[in-house]
């Protein structure tokens, strides 16, 4: 933390306070470009104990980040959101080492964001749901008839037609973080972060990968391999939280952070094996198996680059192979002949 950083942060703190209402949105747009400021803010969050002067900065910084979030201005909101992984790490690291006082303002910020996110604009509890499509209903991409008969399972019958499924919420308001609700809150926060993943700058994705790796290995023998300093105790995690971490990491893989994401995924897998959590094991195994063979080095410079090839499709599988399709077709043919 240099004097330059302190200066930048202090300037940022005072600038927003004096900002007239009308220029907020243009200010919000310009914030994204200020990479020096962003990296200084990371330093403030990362090194809370380093110096007294910085210690004084953390609290106003958290306060202002919360003000940004509360403003309702989309760009400001995302500006705060990008620091979320780092803030979580900081909070978890401090709370694991039982030095609760120093994380007070971070805790307040996290709780504030959580309490804002669990309600909608009218103040009702938000319930997040999504639709499970059913193949027996036509969609913009298919007609049921072209699929052929579907397996008549119990599940298929009960899901005839579209069904909406709640995947998160309603969540109660929280006044403080306890060991009991900690991961419920953090998981929800990470869910919010993941929903905005594509707006997150590379620095934020890098921070996400790093903190996931740290959370998973600190206190375990692998910490020595990774050479992580600082926190030496184990940080408890919940399996839902790990699944949310994986969602973000999966995105990072294909958006320019191949190496970091790879490391983070390995560490999550390591931890999930030790904890015997089935959910993150399942998702991490799937991600690992679906990775292309070679690293996507080329996507380093130009992010958001999707690797596609013209894929040969037709009949690499020879005609006489027995498939469910061919068995069905077989019967059908014989049936047809009888009719003639």
């Amino acid at each position, binding site marked *: 933390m240099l004097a330059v950083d302190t200066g930048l942060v202090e300037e940022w703190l005072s600038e927003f306070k004096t900002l007239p209402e009308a220029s907020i949105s243009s200010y919000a747009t310009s914030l994204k470009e200020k990479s020096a400021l962003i990296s200084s803010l990371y330093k403030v969050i990362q090194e809370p104990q380093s110096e007294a002067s910085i210690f004084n900065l953390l609290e106003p910084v958290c306060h202002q980040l919360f003000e940004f979030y509360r403003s309702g201005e989309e760009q400001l909101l995302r500006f705060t959101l990008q620091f979320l992984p780092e803030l979580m790490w900081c909070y978890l690291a401090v709370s694991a080492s*039982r030095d609760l006082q120093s994380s007070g303002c971070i805790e307040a910020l996290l709780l504030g964001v959580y309490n804002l996110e669990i309600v909608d604009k009218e103040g009702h509890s938000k*319930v997040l749901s*999504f*639709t*499970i499509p*059913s*193949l027996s209903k*036509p*969609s*913009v*991409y*298919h007609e049921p008839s*072209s*699929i052929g008969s579907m397996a008549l399972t119990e*599940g298929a019958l009960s*899901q005839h037609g579209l069904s*909406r*499924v*709640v*995947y998160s919420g*309603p969540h*109660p308001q929280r006044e403080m973080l306890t*060991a*009991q609700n900690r991961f419920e809150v953090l998981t929800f926060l990470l869910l919010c972060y993941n929903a905005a*993943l*594509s707006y997150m700058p590379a620095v934020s994705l890098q921070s996400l990968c790093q903190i996931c790796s740290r959370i998973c290995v600190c*206190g375990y023998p692998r910490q020595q391999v990774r050479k992580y300093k600082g926190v030496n*105790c*184990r940080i408890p995690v*919940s399996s839902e939280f790990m699944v949310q971490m*994986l969602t973000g990491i*999966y*995105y990072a893989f294909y958006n320019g952070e191949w190496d970091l994401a790879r490391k983070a995924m390995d560490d999550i897998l390591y931890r999930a*094996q*030790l904890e*015997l959590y*089935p*959910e993150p*094991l*399942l998702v991490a*195994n*799937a991600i690992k*198996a*679906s990775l292309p063979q070679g690293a996507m080095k080329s996507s380093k410079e*130009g992010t958001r680059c*999707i690797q*596609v*090839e*013209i*894929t*040969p*499709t037709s*009949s690499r*599988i020879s*005609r006489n*192979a*027995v*498939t*469910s399709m061919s068995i069905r*077709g077989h019967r059908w043919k014989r049936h047809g002949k009888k009719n003639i």
Partner: protein
Amino acid sequence: MAAKTLHPHVKLEGEIERCRGEGQWGQLRLLARQLLPPARPPRKAGAQDAEDYGSLLLAEALLEECLKENFSKLKDSIPLSEKNEPRLRDAKQYLTDILSRGRLRPKYMTEALLILGKLHYVEGSYRDAVSMYARAGIDDLSTRGEPLYVLRLLTEAFLIKGLSLERSTNSVASRARLSEREEEVVACFQTACVLAQLYLQELEKTLNNTHSRSIKGSSVQCSEFELSYFLEAALQSAYVTHLKKGNVVEGMRSLRETLRTVETKATQPFKMVLLHSLSEDCYWSPLSDPLPEFMSKEGQSCVSSLLWRRPELYSDENAYCPQDNVEEALLLLLLSESMANRDAVISRAPEQQDDRALSLRDASAVYDLLSITLGRRGQYVMLSECLERALKFAFDEFHLWYQLALSMVACGKSAHAVSVLRECAKLRPADPTVPLLAAKLCIGPLHWLEQGEHFAKTVIDLGEDAGESLAKGYLALGLTYSLQATDATLKGTQDELNKKALQTLERARELAPEDPQIILYLSLQLALVRQISDAIEHLQEALQLCPHDINSLHLLALLFSAQKHYQPALDVIHMAVAEYPESFSLLFTKVKLEWMHRGPEEALVTCRHMLQLWQMVYSVVQHSNSERSSSVTETPVIKKHNGLHLLLPDAHDTDCGSQRASSLAASRLEQALSEITVQSSAMKQGPAQLWTALEQIWLQAGK
């Protein structure tokens, strides 16, 4: 063949068109040979004319057959050379002869140009290819009223023009010219893509007609129609180029459009790959892009004039339209899954091994993506059903079996999961996580202690190879012994098992001195055999490592109370309650301690607090239940409430409580306590009345 009948020419002409349309090159070659001398001319033209027409057809057939065999070379764009491919040389000779003589009708001359262009491309002379198309004037050609094969020729022409332009960019000097060129390439691809879809839809119609008419049936089954390389490329190039350049929005738009066209049997296999790539893309497509207005068909302006019709789209008013990209990905994945599942090779015949491996790879790729999507939304029940469908072609495939087992564990199908895990362990005996997971299930929800013992021993047998999991193996074994001791009726067996449990747990401790979980269970075992002060000592170590663990704190409080140190016990409980304000099992202990130590008044206050708390928790549960009632219910999220971080759920903890009961005055109440802990998990599901009744009893007890 069809030649020697009454109207040979008409029939021959029709047959030729059909072959060219459907891509039956072998047959076309035979027909073409009939036109060559000494055959009759097809129309009233000179014999030379007919001969040229024959050579044209022959050239096309030769070229296509040659291409079919060199599919992989085309894919890697390795130019074919005349020297190695005699058919290529012959075809070229025929075509150049035709063009130099120039006797054919303009229509056929154009066709010759188009075919020659293709040939040039295959040879790697991209400039020549482009100039051929310029000579043919493809931009002004019409497909109206032309036979089917013209559509195919044009599709390929646009595609190849695009590809050739793309590959000869280094000759372009200026930047402005380069971007102009790029635009031209993309326009070519888009045209090719639309034409290809049109062609395939038309083709399907014709094929269906011929099928219904002729009983003999043509040799081509519509489902078996093979896409040539160029047709496939035509369908895909447009979005591939977009995506490669990083134009995600454009690429996605064109991909979605392709997907929306009504599929034909021929495109089905191809579509699966498309779906696959789209659903992958969905993950990292910027959410900022609004989903295309699926239902509104905006006329697209840029494509060239010859597109007088557009491919048919799926456009049912009531069609389901995904609302966000996760839903879209899921829909596409489910479609892919149904296709992959249907086309997977299930026979085990050794000669089909390669096919099987291929189809398995494709299918498991789909299942992986499905796992990522559904896992993200916590839909493990559905996922386990999907994965179960995969088993019929996944014999001896560890990955899919393991994924199925994990999804079953995640959605609480414990008994099934154990059987699947047993298979997994056979397939990969060196992996300690598999038997450990099974042991966890056996010890926990299933209470299959013998099986648990077996799985735990499997891990221990791995020895050093189990790595960090070895300690967990000993932990699991120790726990099984301990639980067996609780179940045992004979005092002798009990003591024996308890001793074994303690030894095993101590071994686990040696292996992983830093693991608070192991220490907790070690001290629990010590407590069970009444070595209370040893137990407290160990427990404090565990709390050093993991200060907020609910089970450690609870046990510590109980241990203090067993030593009649009520004040420290209460202090610990207060600390624990501060961190876990909603844990009923802690609160019950608190009530009991207060009753013992401070008298009924204080206990009553806590009881009241519990009642309030219960009401609050209940209403939240009710609320979320009513929200869910209309939908498929996933196993309630709340089940994670009481810390299942432990290998063993709370039940054991309260076992210890009831053991301690003798030292506390009222053993009856402790028994109730253990009931309650069991209840507290059941309570979430519903039988609220019981719960209330129980509370009432407590209130009475308090008084």
